[in-house]
């Protein structure tokens, strides 16, 4: 379970996040919705440790942690970026196995086996040896999900997962997120796509711009 207590974030003099409190239960989907500029992405960046907070605390399974500095412990939070950010110089399978071999010290064979299993789950098994530029947007996104899953995250975050997808692909990513929930993966989805958020959410949180 992840809890945020009184999270505050400022840029310059402007307060972007003001005393944000939320709880995500294990194996549930929390969606964070709101208009552009409301701080959704900033909140996600704070949770995933890419931005430091100015106040408040994060509690994961009852223990306080700081995502911005505690990246070396087990408090793993996976992120699927809006523009995916696959590594263009690596094949799909290498994208997936890089971190498990280098960070988790899995053997190359184990990492490949696990990577292929995950790719298979998201219907990407025939793409393993392609480079990212050879994939469609939806395929890139699925690779990004597999890459995050290969690190066995306790929590998986998505930034605007539907922003670049057509309606069919939108349904597809919806199915994937729901399927992952059924497998027990806790997920946070930031989106401005309210129907999408309502379709997948166990819990919804609205953020509004601060003035």
């Amino acid at each position, binding site marked *: 379970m992840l809890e945020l207590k009184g999270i505050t974030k400022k840029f310059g003099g402007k307060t972007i996040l003001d005393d944000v409190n939320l709880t995500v239960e294990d194996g549930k989907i929390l969606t964070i919705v709101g208009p552009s500029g409301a701080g959704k992405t900033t909140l996600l960046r704070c949770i995933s440790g890419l931005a430091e907070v100015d106040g408040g605390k994060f509690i994961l399974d009852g223990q306080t942690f700081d995502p911005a500095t505690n990246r070396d412990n087990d408090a793993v939070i996976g992120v699927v*970026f809006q523009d995916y950010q*696959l*590594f*263009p110089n690596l094949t799909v399978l290498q994208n997936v196995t890089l*971190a498990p071999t*280098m*960070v988790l010290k899995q053997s190359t064979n184990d990492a490949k086996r696990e990577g292929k299993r995950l790719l298979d789950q998201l219907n990407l098994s025939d793409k393993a040896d392609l480079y990212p530029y050879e994939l469609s947007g939806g395929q890139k996104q699925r690779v990004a999900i597999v890459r995050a899953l290969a*690190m066995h995250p306790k929590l998986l975050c998505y930034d605007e997962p539907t922003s670049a997808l057509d309606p069919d692909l939108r349904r597809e990513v919806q199915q994937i997120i729901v399927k992952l929930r059924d497998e027990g993966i806790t997920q946070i989805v930031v989106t401005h796509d309210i129907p999408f958020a309502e379709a997948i959410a166990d819990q919804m949180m609205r953020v509004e711009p601060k003035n």
Partner: protein
Amino acid sequence: MHYFSEILPSLISGTGMTLSIFFWTIIVSVPLGILVGLGMKTKFKPLTWLIDIYVWLMRGTPLLLQLIFVFYGLPIIGIVFQRYDAALFAFILNYTAYFAEIFRGGLQAIPIGQYESARVLRLTRWQTLRKIVIPQVVKIVLPSIGNEVINLVKDSSLVYVIGLGDLLRAGNVAMARDVTIAPMLLVGVIYLLLTAVCTLALHQLEKHYSAWR
């Protein structure tokens, strides 16, 4: 024809010196250029100032002057190089500055999202550089590096100024002795061959890196 075969051995031995300067400069300057290029991007200001001054000196003065200064000037403050070492030292210093500037440009072209996505995967900074950033930078900078490599083949002729016998000097000696331009023709052909080999090798490298985009 007979004359060409007579002067060829001395030209070939000169080519040996040209190649030796060329290879050692490349082998040392390229990795150093990457390091200095990374150094330019650090937040530690004194280091970036130091690098800025170094690059300004190296790009702001002629390589010929730098060669003269290293060989004839540094002994004044007690640093004495052999001719060959002085040449290598000056070439490496000079070319590292150019390579560093090229790599800095390449590093700036890598989107911040690549670093962030490596970070959330918990890769260390060094792993991120080695596996993700540097391969992408190398692909971006290859054409510019190629330019410098071709330049280096020809720049190596400057070593005559501190008395080293390279290809051009060998041709010069033959020309003065036999009072004919013919040796210089041969010198030109040899330079063309050397740069052709470099061009082919660079094309192969670019082809290797064209597997991905």
